[in-house]
């Protein structure tokens, strides 16, 4: 009977339009939140990236003073310990240099020039190396030393050096078949010869590596203490290279890293600003759309105000009437929210397809926190709507 009296003036068309607006607004907000989580995910978890941005090489800035040997560009134990202590750094790998000089020769074939070069080698802890190869080990007495080189060295040769010199291009496999000879000069100036072979390529590490076991053994055997004793480069594994605190730490300490990998941080910051703006606009649209919905309800109530007054004069409690409107409001509003939640799952699926088509890997399912935020908004808007309706009816009771 109450609904017959109170909803006699309701306009279905107006309610429908207001409800559609509210639905779209909520959907936009939820989509913006979900997009935020997707993009954050893209920038923090790059599981399959070949060049993982979570490994960064760090060295000290080289200045005139280093060149003049007044100050050192190598890291002290205290400095390494300090870096290790930072929360955003997971692991620190020390590049161990060789403390003796050496010479590398190799002969590809009879009709190619003999390769001959001054040489250096560095060692890194095995767990920091991105290459899985069962030949990557060395034990004292072993005659052949396995070597890993950065893959871009080969690219440099194939695409820059070889074409300009009219030399044939070579494959990764070819290089691994070239027998090399390592000529080491020991403390007394004697020459020692070792066989060597490039066994693999690294995308992560920007140096020529031999197994750490060989470097340590050879330093002890042939090394002169004064030469390159301390490490001057470190390999860091970081949780998130886009973390601004990480960049700030490097800057404060005067450490350098390849800027490119930190660029992700800037892009992330830019995207976060853009998303923030979209989010703020989204919040405004949602507030407006919900406001329209609430105002539609207030119009409904004010159109029924004569009936409400009369019901109150006949002895109805105004709270009964405001409860009636609130039930009606909540049924519609929560229904709209439910549809919006269902639709955002669909939108997420479409976004997932779009991301995947563009080779961006994001989770296929909506983020739980998106639902949590959505629920918070729903709760806040339900409460404010209920309060507004209650006050409007209360005003008619006097």
């Amino acid at each position, binding site marked *: *009977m109450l609904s017959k*009296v109170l909803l006699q003036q309701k306009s279905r068309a107006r309610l429908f339009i207001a409800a559609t607006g509210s639905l779209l607004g909520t959907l936009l907000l939820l989509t913006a939140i979900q997009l935020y989580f997707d993009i954050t995910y893209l920038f923090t978890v790059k599981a399959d990236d070949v060049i993982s941005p979570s490994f960064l090489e760090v060295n000290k800035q080289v200045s005139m003073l280093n060149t003049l040997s007044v100050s050192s560009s190598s890291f002290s134990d205290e400095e390494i310990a300090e870096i290790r202590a930072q929360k955003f750094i997971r692991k620190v790998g020390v590049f161990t240099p060789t403390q003796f000089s050496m010479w590398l020769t190799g002969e590809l074939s009879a009709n190619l020039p003999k390769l001959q070069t001054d040489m250096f080698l560095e060692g890194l802890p095995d767990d920091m190396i991105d290459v899985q190869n069962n030949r990557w080990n060395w034990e004292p007495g072993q005659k052949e030393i396995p070597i890993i080189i950065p893959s871009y060295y080969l690219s440099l040769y194939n695409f820059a050096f070889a074409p300009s010199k009219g030399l044939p291009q070579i494959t990764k496999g070819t290089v691994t078949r070239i027998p090399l000879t390592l000529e080491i000069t020991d403390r007394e100036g004697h020459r020692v010869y070792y066989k060597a072979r490039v066994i693999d390529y690294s995308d992560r590490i920007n140096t020529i590596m031999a197994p750490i076991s060989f470097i340590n053994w050879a330093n002890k055997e042939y090394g002169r203490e004064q030469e390159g004793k301390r490490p001057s480069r470190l390999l860091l594994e970081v949780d998130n290279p886009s973390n601004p605190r990480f960049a700030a730490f490097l800057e404060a300490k005067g450490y350098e890293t390849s800027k490119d990998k930190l660029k992700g941080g800037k892009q992330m910051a830019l995207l976060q600003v853009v998303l923030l703006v979209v989010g703020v606009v989204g919040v405004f649209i949602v507030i407006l759309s919900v406001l329209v919905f609430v105002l539609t309800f207030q119009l409904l109530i004010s159109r029924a105000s004569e*009936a409400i007054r*009369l019901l109150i*004069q*006949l002895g109805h*409690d*105004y709270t009964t009437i405001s409860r009636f409107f609130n039930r009606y409001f909540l049924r519609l509003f929560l229904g709209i929210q439910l549809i919006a939640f269902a639709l955002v799952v669909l939108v997420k699926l479409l976004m997932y397809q779009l991301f995947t088509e563009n080779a961006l890997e994001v989770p296929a399912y909506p983020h739980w926190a998106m639902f949590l935020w959505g629920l918070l908004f729903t709760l806040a808007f339900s409460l404010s709507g209920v309060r507004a309706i209650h006050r409007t009816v209360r005003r008619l009771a006097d």
Partner: protein
Amino acid sequence: MVTFNQVVPQPLEGIYNPQSQIWATELAVPSGHLVEVMSASGKGKSTFLQIIYGIRKDFKGICQVNGKDIRHYSPAEKAELRRTKVSIVFQDLRLFPHLTGWENLQVKNQLTGHKTEAEMRELTERLGVAFLLDKPCGIMSYGQQQRFAIIRALCQPFTLLMLDEPFSHLDRGNIELCCALLQEECKHQQAGLILTTLGESYPLPYDTRLTL
């Protein structure tokens, strides 16, 4: 029990009848009394009833209903008063025009649960409007609507029944039917009654007659 102490409605200030037995004087309407209020139009008959009913607040002085200043009733207390103590037939009836006669009675009775459906039907039969139960009130004659308004007022418990010129569009025969019914209901509920009229006298055993 209703008492008025120096009550003057603002629109009547300075122009009310100095001989008035209600305005700017002391008045007590004891429980169970049948009261007739008679005056020409514009003297404040409706205002008098609406002050007691708690609808109007634009007056000076103090009006107490059941020992409490009517201005101090909270909305919930007023609702309770209107459901269980004081019933009214408005001069303009205030029926819902788009609801049928039956639905208009139900709006009240569903709130109070005072009458059974059979009793309500019987009341409409007694006042000769049973055939209109399924018709919207908006298309009834004013006299028919007056009878529905009276029946609606009876669909609740009360200690005071107030009627504002309730028979203005009724013929003598119907007035007699209504008066008999009202008298019976008041007696049954041991309730008082205040009825306003422009001058016509109705067959009711009044205890008091007041002029405005």
